């Protein structure tokens, strides 16, 4: 957080609760976002990292572990089982957590969660908050909200810190700043850390890291409240689990007076044994690590005799539309453990990056989850912008049928007439013929001949009036001449020595 914004926040501190600054979704502008992304050279350079490194690293660790595929099955089954008894496991988690001195708060909506957190901060008189990386905090627009209410929240994960300096959303669920080049980050640091010597060398990524560390160290020590997300909640012990590579989560959880865990309800798993199995697929699928550098379990506030830890421990359990997914066709999406493998392997994500998707969750998992959380009418393009290549499902550690669920969203859109009129008319026109095979054969026989004639022996078109989307970038192959079915019919007729039966005759070659 820059000095400028924290001063603004302090000055703006109102008596009541300010509304969250719009954590605005641009999901409606997917096509425009995508077009801009395709023309952004920095972004295109940055995206190569995803396409090359994440995929190769995952493959390498998966190949090294003979039981990896069996572990994926087990991970899927653990999540399915938990979802089937989610109410019971949440109650068990709450009971164990409360026994260890923590407070559990249920939040039905994003607004509820924001207010609960603000309330906790106000009761403690908190002015400064540190944050571990949390996608759920992004989902509820927490930083803007706290800022508008006079509380300065500082992101402590390096990637999150960078995008907070830029006032951006994460572009990837595990690598929030993956859309940026090193040079852009250096520019941001020079702008934000203007009190540091101008001539300092920030060429190396390690020097950027060191600078962020020294800036953040002060923030850690000054924070009244630390807020983290949770990768998992363990019902058996009442523990909340975060996996990180920077150790910032631990400092966020242990140094301030209070630790708030913000987690969505589907993060609960039954036992430590289940947790261990899920951890084995999580880091491998995400970053290609066998384990992340830090795996931290926190279980309530500081106990007598503990060397460190917060005096207060709160868990905010967020629903925000998830319980409605439990009973329906998008239930499998609740298995997601947020590893990012689907977007790492998605050709559309590789082409346009995460911001094009317009909200917190990008890529294939976002294309399924976002419409469930903010409404399909707000995110019409997302489930459509997929080639259905199936690579996301192929790598998903909990085997979520992502293409199938994107298709389910397309069905909802079709039923509700949300799909574009031109597409609907085109489909209806095509379907009229496709449902009448005899008519279809006649019509295509004529069309094939006409197109072949129009191509005049050149074999292809450079421009086609009704297919300009195609011919803007590609030539379009012309038909060879007569359709297969008409040629086949003619051959069979000739072989039998008699003419085609009436009405069966296609245009002959």
């Amino acid at each position: 957080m820059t000095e400028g914004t924290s001063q603004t926040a302090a000055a703006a501190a109102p008596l009541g609760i300010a509304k969250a600054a719009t954590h605005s979704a641009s999901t409606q502008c997917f096509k425009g976002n995508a077009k801009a992304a395709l023309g952004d050279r920095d972004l295109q350079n940055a995206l190569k990292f995803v396409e090359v490194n994440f995929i190769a690293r995952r493959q390498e660790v998966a190949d090294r572990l003979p039981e990896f595929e069996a572990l994926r099955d087990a991970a899927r089954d653990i999540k399915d089982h938990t979802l089937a008894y989610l109410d019971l496991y949440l109650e068990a988690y709450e009971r164990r957590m409360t026994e260890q001195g923590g407070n559990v708060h249920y939040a039905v909506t994003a607004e509820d969660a924001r207010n609960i957190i603000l309330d906790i901060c106000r009761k403690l008189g908190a002015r400064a908050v540190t944050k571990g990386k949390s996608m759920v905090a992004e989902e509820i627009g927490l930083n803007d909200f706290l800022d508008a209410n006079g509380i300065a929240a500082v992101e402590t994960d390096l990637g999150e810190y960078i995008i907070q300096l830029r006032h951006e959303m994460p572009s990837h669920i595990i690598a929030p700043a993956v859309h940026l080049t090193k040079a852009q980050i250096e520019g941001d640091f020079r702008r934000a850390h203007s009190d540091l010597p101008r001539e300092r060398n920030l060429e190396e990524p390690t020097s950027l890291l060191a600078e962020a560390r020294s800036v953040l160290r002060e923030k850690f020590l000054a924070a009244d409240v630390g807020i983290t997300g949770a990768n998992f909640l363990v019902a058996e012990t009442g523990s909340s689990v975060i996996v990180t590579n920077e150790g910032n989560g631990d400092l966020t959880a242990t140094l301030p007076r209070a630790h708030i865990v913000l987690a969505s309800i589907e993060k609960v798993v039954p036992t430590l044994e289940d947790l261990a199995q899920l951890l084995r697929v999580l880091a491998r699928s995400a970053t290609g690590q066998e384990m992340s550098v830090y795996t931290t379990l926190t279980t309530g506030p500081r106990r007598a005799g503990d060397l460190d830890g917060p005096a207060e421990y709160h868990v905010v359990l967020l629903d925000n539309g998830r319980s409605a997914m439990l009973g329906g066709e998008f239930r499998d999406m609740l298995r997601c453990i947020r590893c990012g493998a689907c977007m790492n392997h998605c050709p559309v994500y590789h082409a346009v990056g995460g911001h094009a998707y317009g909200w917190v969750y990008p890529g294939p998992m976002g294309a399924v989850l976002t419409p469930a959380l903010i409404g399909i009418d707000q995110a019409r393009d997302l489930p459509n912008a997929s080639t259905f290549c199936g690579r996301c499902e192929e790598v998903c550690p909990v085997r979520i049928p992502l293409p199938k669920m994107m298709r389910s969203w397309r069905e909802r859109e079709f039923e509700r007439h949300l799909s574009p009129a031109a597409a609907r008319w085109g489909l209806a026109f095509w379907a009229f013929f496709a449902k009448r095979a005899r008519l279809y054969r006649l019509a295509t026989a004529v069309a094939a001949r006409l197109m072949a004639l129009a191509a005049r022996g050149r074999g292809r078109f450079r421009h086609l009036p009704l297919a300009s989307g195609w011919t803007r970038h590609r030539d379009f192959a012309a038909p060879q001449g007569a359709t297969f079915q008409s040629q086949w019919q003619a051959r069979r007729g000739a072989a039998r020595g008699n003419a085609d039966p009436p009405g069966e005759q296609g245009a002959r070659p």
Partner: protein
Amino acid sequence: MGETMAERKTRHVGLFVTCLVDLFRPSVGFAAVKLLEDAGCTVEVPRQSCCGQPAFNSGDRATSREIAAQVIDAFAPFDFVVAPSGSCAGMLKIHYPELFRGDPNWQPRADRFAAKTHELLSFLFHVCGVRAVAARLAATATYHDSCSGLRELGLRSEPRALLGTVAGLKLAEMHDANVCCGFGGTFCVKYPDISNAIVAKKAANIAATGASLLLAGDLGCLMNMAGKLQRDGSAIAARHVAEVLAGMTDEPAIGAPHAPSGPAP
């Protein structure tokens, strides 16, 4: 393998030619017929339109069901249904049963239909036991794995194994052969710029192999990749893998001009 000729002769195949092959490249259909007949099958082509994917992937389930029912009916008389496309075969084999799940009349029919449906090379290799073809082609080719064939049907080694027996043909693997070409059915016209970015990478990977011929098992992907290569001014030819395996490469390649001697038969 290990069957008598008489048993082989009993394989009665209905060819699902696919709408793209029917309309744009009938020579692929005839290559499929030759390969099937060489493997001892009798082939017929019942009246047909399309597998219904444009409707299915646009969320129009009612139309998809109508078309699926029509296809299942049309192919009821055959022992096997074979399609020269992983994408259409995937629709028939994987998605038709999904469309009728829970329907007491149609689900069993869709399941039976799915069980007898195969992608062409998968059928030749696994059902007919074909391990070699008699074709010859002096060229270096690179093979693209189309997504549905690869990920829905597990087709990967079969095309390479059979292409390996074409006399004179060398195979040069491209980088990321298993990555989508950006076609995606209606995706390529709904999101043309993204599709273009994806196929541009594919075209670069194809060109980097130094191959003169691009092969794949799906005409949609092939038209997309060929169109991009041609727009880029590349001389790389593109053909369906069945044309090469059947030794039927006299027709101009996809999108290539007709030979001056006049249209081929």
